[in-house]
Structure formats: structure tokens, C-alpha cells
């Protein structure tokens, strides 16, 4: 149990800017890596990072998708199959190493992410938009599940054939309640923030400190070295 708790605490201690830096490195490796094997090694290292921070199970999920796509791509190429298009697999293969550090970023407390973004030279409005987008994601998913249930009860989703026969109606049934609910939530969240002083133009500090620890420095340096190596070799 204490091992798990220690792992939980690690994700809270990691500097979010370090994770952001690793995301950028992942983009660079995906784009610039000279050889496919470099990308595979980088992804394995990312899995290692996820495991150390306590997300081994999710990391395994990502790795599974990654390896399956690689295998399938090889099969397709060897057998000359065109469907699913090899480009699909190329895209997923490039996306997975980027999604892994992004997943870690999202697991950090949002207050810490705010603190980290405040350290960057970004306008407050942009920072706020990014944080609020992350905040809305789970809400929108929950609302969509409700709307889908309501549509099923009403019989709007009886069969794929029915949906294809009335695509515009189906779109309207989904869009209208989703937008109404999203606007209501946006307004309520905005009023809740305004009454707690979000518009105060003063310089703000946070409950969470986004400090640079030696571990973060090592992480960033390591990521940089590997990225440069993979790009150059």
C-alpha cells in the first residue's frame, strides 16, 4: 500500500513544465527520428516513466495499441493489403508517444498545471482557456452519456440504418441538448469563478508550487539528449 501511495505522490511532485518539455521532445522524435527503432525505444522509455509515476496499467494499454499497430502495419505491407490504410497505422504510431506524456499532464492537479502555465510567457486568457477546456472534458462526456440515453429511450437510435436515413435529425437531437447543457454549465462555472475573484488583475500565487527538483532536471536533460541523438543518428 505504501508503495502505491508513494507512486501517487510522485506524479504530484513532478514539474508540469518537465512533462510539457517531454511532450515536445516526443513530437520531435516522432517527426525527426531517422529510424523506426528509435521511436520504439523512446516509447518504451515513456512507458517506463509512466510506470514509475504510478500509471503502469494505462501505460501498458498505450504500449499494447502501439505494438499492435506496428505489427498490423508490417502485416499489411508484407501482404500488400491496402485496407485499413497503412497511413492509419502510421498516424496512430506517431500519436501514441505524444499522448503518453499528455496523459500524465492531465493527471496532475489542475492547480499545478495553472501554476506551471503561469510560469510561461503566455497571456492569462490563453492559460484560462486551456485549463477550462481540460475541466470541461469530463463534464461534456458525462452530459453526452445522458443525452445518448435519452435518445435511446425515445427511439432515435433504434438502428444504424435509422440514423443514416435521418442524419440531420439525429445531428439536431445530439447538438441541441448538448449545446444547451454546455452553455448552462459554462455560465454557472463562470459565475462561480467570478464571485471568487478570478478577474482580479493582481499577481497570483498558487496552493501548488511548480518547483524544479533535481529529478525534473535529470528528466528534461535525459529527454533532450535522447531526442537530439535520435534526430541526428
Amino acid at each position, binding site marked *: 500500500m505504501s508503495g502505491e501511495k508513494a507512486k501517487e505522490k510522485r506524479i504530484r511532485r513532478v514539474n508540469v513544465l518537465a512533462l510539457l518539455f517531454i511532450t515536445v521532445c516526443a513530437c520531435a522524435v516522432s517527426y525527426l527520428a531517422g529510424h523506426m527503432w528509435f521511436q520504439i525505444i523512446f516509447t518504451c522509455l515513456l512507458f517506463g516513466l509512466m510506470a514509475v509515476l504510478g500509471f503502469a496499467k494505462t501505460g501498458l494499454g498505450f504500449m499494447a495499441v502501439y505494438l499492435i499497430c506496428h505489427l498490423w502495419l508490417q502485416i499489411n505491407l508484407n501482404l500488400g493489403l491496402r485496407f485499413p490504410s497503412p497511413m492509419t497505422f502510421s498516424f496512430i504510431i506517431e500519436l501514441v508517444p505524444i499522448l503518453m506524456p499528455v496523459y500524465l499532464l492531465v493527471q496532475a492537479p489542475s*492547480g499545478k498545471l495553472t501554476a506551471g502555465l503561469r510560469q510561461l510567457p503566455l497571456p492569462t486568457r490563453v492559460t484560462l482557456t486551456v485549463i477550462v477546456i481540460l475541466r470541461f472534458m469530463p463534464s461534456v462526456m*458525462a452530459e453526452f452519456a*445522458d443525452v445518448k440515453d435519452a435518445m435511446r*429511450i425515445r427511439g432515435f437510435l433504434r438502428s444504424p440504418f435509422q440514423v443514416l436515413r435521418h442524419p440531420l435529425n439525429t445531428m439536431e437531437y445530439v447538438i441541441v441538448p448538448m449545446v444547451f447543457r454546455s452553455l448552462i454549465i459554462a455560465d454557472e462555472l463562470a459565475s*462561480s469563478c467570478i464571485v*471568487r475573484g478570478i478577474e482580479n488583475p493582481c499577481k497570483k*500565487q498558487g*496552493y501548488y508550487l511548480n518547483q524544479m527538483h533535481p529529478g525534473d532536471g535529470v528528466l528534461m536533460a535525459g529527454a533532450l539528449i535522447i531526442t537530439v541523438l535520435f534526430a541526428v543518428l
Partner: protein
Amino acid sequence: MQTVIEIKNLSFAYEGVKEQLKNINLTVLKGEVVVLTGPSGGGKSTLTRVINGLVPYFYEGMLTGDVLLMGKKLSDIPSWERGRYVGNVFQDPRSQFFANEVAGEIAFGCENYGMNHKEIMESVEHTARELKIADILDEKVRFLSYGMRQRVAIASARAMDPLIYVMDEPSANLDMKAAQNLAEILLGLKREGKTIFIAEHRLHYLQDIADRIIYLRDGEIAAEFLPREAAALAAGHRGQLGLRSMTLENLPVLPDTADSEQDALLEVRGLNKAFGRHCVADDLTFSCRPGEVIAVVGPNAAGKSTLGKMLAGLMKEDSGEVSFAKRKLKASGRRGLIWYIMQDLDSQLFGEDLMNELLTGQKRTPEREERAKAILASLNLVEFMEQHPMTLSGGQKQRLALGVALMNESPVIILDEPTSGLDGKNMQNVSRQIRLLAKQGHIILMITHDIECALSTCSRALHLQDGRLADDFKIESAGQLLAVMR
């Protein structure tokens, strides 16, 4: 005694709408707990928004008159400074939280007011200890129960230690136990000398806390009661005012009118469902006769909504069977036959006007149009026929949702918290409508925390606890239901 809130000759109208508040004059003293109540649409929420400054800053419109906080004009205080004097708790536990973790949420106000890191940490830890949530500081808010979330909301307001707390129906989505917990917190705040201004329909949990009850109707202060006076109101007078009961113990019970001779129409046998290791339905077995209105009660997360969704065919059961008229039905076969009305009505309204709402999805024939009109007439919604469903009040939307179920000719209707947030009059309207449907032979299952509605509508109760059917009894007294709900 120091005057903390002073409202002089206040009138307000939202943009493009009729006047919401008319010539309000109100004074609140330090340490007072003032409860604002009245029929829906009477201006309660608007008045709370006037005090915290959201009106007219956020909700634009025409405001005349003065609002003074501790002698200072509210309009002279910058919008972001008002949070120092007025802490807020809103109704919906889903949309008022900004941060994803409890600590971040409590710290939110402190961060915005320029406190340094050390001060913020101290304030958060101190507030969390006082509200007994120090052990969940690292938890994600969206995994907490609604009752705990409202506790976090109060903590977030408290972290700035404001003098005044303004709350807009804070107990609307809470079960009875959580409402009692909320009452304890409010009592604690009152003992510290804080001034609390609450807009509420549910008055019973505020019985020992409120100093004054202000009755707002059509935007005007129509009456003022002391709590004991409100409790002493005759049922008839209370009904006229559209209020909920202050006391729950002596509420009358509905006489059982269901035909006990008829055979059971809906039969549930051995229903089981688990999400991983969490069991939400454990060997549920019961049956329902036509014309029965059954309350499904129990603590939050007992599996009530899951039962509703399974019966309606939205979720497949792991094992067990559901039969209707002696025919076993799979989940897909139950959809449409057993109609489930979810708690949040906004996610279930699809039409551009009421007729369209009832007719959309199927071919528009003259017969269906006539039926739709007849249904709207029986639900007293004909005058709103051309309006968009989203312009209706909570009670009207609930009746519209019933209308959709009727259009579909569903013999079994399951309602999930149909009266949460409704005032006394609207609750009685919904209750009357449900009893009418039962008389026509429908089976109605009502998942509810609202004991008043359960007593005036239901003859029988199913008590769920941890997914098990703990009890299945005929409702004979308010005390019986209270024991189960508390």
C-alpha cells in the same frame, strides 16, 4: 446590532424580460440567518444574485435602487473584491467547481486574492480541518458524492473567511442525510457569528437554524415569518402560499387506492449487476400491480438510478429476469415499454416547441397531433404550446416529460427525482399528475429523496441499500419513511 446587508427600493428586470424584483426593501443584521422562500419564478435566485453582485454585472438587465454591504455601496466595490465579503454556494454540484482536486478548489479564492503560497496552504489546511475534509484534500472532486461536494463548496467560500454567506438552494440535489449534514455546517457558521442568506424550497432542515423566513412572491416581499410561525401554518394556507412543509414528522399519508385484486403486471426476479467489485444490484426481486405508485428510496449510490436504467433497458443486467404481462423481456425489448425519465430534464428535450417535442421522431399524422393536443391539455400545458421547451419552468418541464411518456403509451414509467428543486405548488401538481396516471392503470416507480412528494403520491416503498432490496413496505406513516430516508 450591525447592519450587514441593506437593500433599498430595489427593482430589477433581466434584459428583454418582465420585472423580476419590484421595490424590495430588506435589512439583514450581523449573525442573522435569513431564509428566502416562495414560489418558483418569484425572484429568490435573482435576489441572491443581487447581493453577491452577479446581478447586474453578470446577468445583465436594468437595476434600480441601492444595495449596501456593511454600509458600502455594492456598486462601488470592484467585482472581484466582493468575494472577500460574500462567500457563495450554488445549487448544482456538477458545475460550480473549477479545480479537479479538493485542495485546489478550496484554494481557488485565496489564489485569486493575491495571498502568497504559505498563506494559501495554511488557509486551506485550516478550513479543511474545520469542515472535516482534511482526509480528502487530494481526491478528485468529480468522484465525491453530492453531499461532500457541497461541503467542499462551503470550504472554498470559507477559506476567505467572509462575513456573509449567500446560498442558492444548496440542498436541491442532496438526500436527507446530506441535507442534515449541511444543516450542521450552517449551524457551525451561525455560531461563529456569520450572516447567512439562503434561498430555499426545502425548509425542514433549516428549522433550527433560520432566524427569519422571508416569503417572496412575484418579485415582492409578500410576508415574513419566524420559523415557529412557518411551522404552525395550516396545510391549506401553506398550500396556498406554495410552500413546502417545515416539519416532516406529521405529514399526512395518501390513502391506498390501488386495486389489490389485480395480478402483478411487472415482475422482477433475481436482478443482479456489478461494476467490477462494486455491486449495484444484488438479487432484486419485486413485482408491481397496475395503478401502483411506488417510491424507490435509499441513500445515494444505493443503486436506485441503476435499477431504473436496467428496467428501462438502457443497461443490461448481469443475471435475473424482468417480465411484463407474464412475458420475459430482454433489455432491448423493455425499451419504450418501461419509460425512464432522468433527473436532468434539459438533456431529454429535443423539440422546438411543445407539439414538436411530443411528435418528433415519428411520422406526423392528424391522429397523433390530436393525441398530442389532448395530452398537453390534460397536463395544463396548452397555453405554452408554441413555446420552446427550454423556456418552461422546472415543474412544467417535468409534466412535459410525462407527456412524452404518455405519447409513447408506456405502461410503466420510472421517474428519477422528479421533484428536486420544485416548490410546494409545483410538487403538488406533479404529484397530482402522477396519481392521475396511476388511476389510468400505469405503474409508476418514483426514485426520490423528497419525502413530502413520496407521502402525497406513493402507496408503497422499496428501500434499496448497497444494491439490495432491504425492505418492501406499504407506506403507513411519515415516521416510517423518515426512518428509512435519514
